[in-house]
């Protein structure tokens, strides 16, 4: 189905960003505008998500150029779910930022940059070709470099460079691989690529020389952005230093876009035929190590923010585990897990922000007894933490259930690692909960800093995200249904290809393959 309004998801944040630049220094209008923009996008995308819940695909061709020549925007089950989750996260963090960001930071282009981040994220999720995926990545990263370094302290600066250089190198490799793909197959449109590649595999013609190498290069790129096993070292420090609303935004969005890119491109194009035999073992090993070492790192930490940041890595492992199976249920489980993880993880970071405000520190030695002082915070943190662990009525449970059950028949040892990781996650979350909230404060507890009031925005943000997380857990069936459609469309791309290229224009031209 064609829906020309899809472009609004990119245009609205861009326009908001432009107007926010014009309003720099005036906080109230910027805030109202930002919330309006995120809220309207959320409503639009929820509406479209309902429209496509039976597995339809919404498509818009930019500038009315037909599919393989122009830029295609695709809103299918995969991108739809992630866009909605991303916007929920962004809205929660944005509102939270009103009360936790220093006025100084907020004045220095926070609002335009946050909107620009959404331009990039939405474009990544929507785009239907490889090169625009790169452009989306770059817009998102640009905004994140900015957000990472506003009002930067010395330490923050040092970390910003690590993140900046790693991402620049990864992006360059992405450009080179996109060029290689174009040189080999003569197109960059994902639907077109999927058609050519599967056609060549089916006809026994085989993939062009070097295709497998490009697959691995792209895996490197997306792995670096998504913090998979050997390429995760940038993540803990990056999430440790910036203001908490920014860290929460990053934890919900940045790595997920990397994982999304794997989910979108690999089952369709880059893990087809003989490439699958090379890529799958890499994904499997990476998933296992990412899960397990990530959680070990988290258990050993003593600062709440670091614990949460390193948990991001461990949970990226779960997603990669789902992707590495390349089956319908595996992909669907990974997607469902991603959606709930984005919301839950961001809300945990936001809780950590309020904790820092209350006690002036996020070190577990220095906090304590928070449940008595702030019951709302304690309850929210508990709900979110248990969703992360995967306690039955909460959202994390269903994600892990699908992954582990599906994985049992394919890589049983990965399922065992996943269960072990779950247990260790429980351990570290309980550590935070008991020392931070349950036990009375220790003797060296630091005194609260800052004025006690003014946390309304923070509570609204946390409440919004936690309620969404509960909703994802309670409404697991309809959401999982959509995720299952996404899994089906990824394992059998005919629906996707026909939606992007309804008239078979490429096929009628004879294609270039």
């Amino acid at each position, binding site marked *: 189905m064609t829906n*020309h*309004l899809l*472009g*609004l998801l990119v*245009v609205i944040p*861009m*326009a908001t960003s*432009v*107007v926010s*630049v*014009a309003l*720099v220094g005036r906080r109230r209008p910027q805030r109202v505008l930002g919330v309006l923009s995120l809220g309207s996008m959320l409503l639009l995308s929820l509406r479209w998500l309902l429209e496509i819940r039976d597995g339809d695909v919404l498509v*818009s*061709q*930019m*500038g*009315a150029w037909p599919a393989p020549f122009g830029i295609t925007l695709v809103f299918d089950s995969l991108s739809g779910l992630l866009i909605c989750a991303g916007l929920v996260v962004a809205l929660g963090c944005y509102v939270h930022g009103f009360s936790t960001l220093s006025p100084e930071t907020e004045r220095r282009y926070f609002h335009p940059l946050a909107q620009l981040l959404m331009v990039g994220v939405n474009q990544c999720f929507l785009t239907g070709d490889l090169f625009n995926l790169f452009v989306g990545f770059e817009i998102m990263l640009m905004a994140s470099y900015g957000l990472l370094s506003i009002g930067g302290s010395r330490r923050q600066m040092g970390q910003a460079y690590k993140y900046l250089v790693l991402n620049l190198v990864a992006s360059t490799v992405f450009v080179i691989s996109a060029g290689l793909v174009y040189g080999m197959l003569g197109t960059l449109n994902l639907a077109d690529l999927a058609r050519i590649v599967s056609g060549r595999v089916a006809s026994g013609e085989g993939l062009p020389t070097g295709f497998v190498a490009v697959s691995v290069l792209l895996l490197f790129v997306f792995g670096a952005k998504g913090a998979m096993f050997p390429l995760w070292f940038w993540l803990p420090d990056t999430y440790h230093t910036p203001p908490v609303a920014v860290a929460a935004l990053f934890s919900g969005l940045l790595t997920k876009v990397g994982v999304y890119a794997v989910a979108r491109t690999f089952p369709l194009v880059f893990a087809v035929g003989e490439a699958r035999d090379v890529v799958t073992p890499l994904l499997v090993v990476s998933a296992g190590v990412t899960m397990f070492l990530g959680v070990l790192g988290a258990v050993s930490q003593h600062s709440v923010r670091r614990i949460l940041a390193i948990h991001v890595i461990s949970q990226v492992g779960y997603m990669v585990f789902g992707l590495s199976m390349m089956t319908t249920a595996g992909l669907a489980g990974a997607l469902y897990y991603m959606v709930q993880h984005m919301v839950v993880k961001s809300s945990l970071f936001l809780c950590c922000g309020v904790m820092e405000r209350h006690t002036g520190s996020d070190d577990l030695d220095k906090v304590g007894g928070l449940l008595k002082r702030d019951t709302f915070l304690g309850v929210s943190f508990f709900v979110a933490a248990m969703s992360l662990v995967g306690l039955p009525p909460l959202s994390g449970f269903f994600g892990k259930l699908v992954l582990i059950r599906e994985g049992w028949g394919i890589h049983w040892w990965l399922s065992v690692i996943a269960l072990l990781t779950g247990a260790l996650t429980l351990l570290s979350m309980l550590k935070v909960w008991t020392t931070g909230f349950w036990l009375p404060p220790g003797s060296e507890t630091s005194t609260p800093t800052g004025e006690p009031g003014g946390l309304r925005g923070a509570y609204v943000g946390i409440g919004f995200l936690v309620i969404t997380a509960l909703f994802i857990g309670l409404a697991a069936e309809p959401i999982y249904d959509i995720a299952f459609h996404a899994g089906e469309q990824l394992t059998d791309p005919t629906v996707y290809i026909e939606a992007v290229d309804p008239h078979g224009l490429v096929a009628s031209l004879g294609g270039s393959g």
Partner: protein
Amino acid sequence: MRIDSLILRTAVRLVLPLTVLLAIYAALNGHNAPGGGFIAGLVTTVGLCTYRMAFGERAFHRLFPVHPRWLVVAGLGLTLVVAIIPLLAGEPLLRSASTVLRLGGQELHLVSATVFDLGVLVVVVGVAVGMITRLGEELGP
């Protein structure tokens, strides 16, 4: 940074209008031939920066009295408006409208994408001038 040289000043006075002319040509030519908003913007920036180099900051501010930020806002606003208009008409984003104007036997091909390109030009000038001014300030007057 300022280079105090009579030769440079005289040359820049001559070169700047020519640069702007070249930029306009590149911007309008860019639809079907080499050129376009980005390149035109860079050409303009080079002209402006040479002017800044020859005449110093104060003279540059007289020539270019707005903060570059406003150019970015204006240019992006223009491109966004051009991008959105087709949506109102039920066409996909960025759809370009074109018409052929006959002027005394000559045919003039008018495209709405040109306006988009002009927006790009303004953005590029804003960004590049802003960047170079900012970096130039660090090198001292």
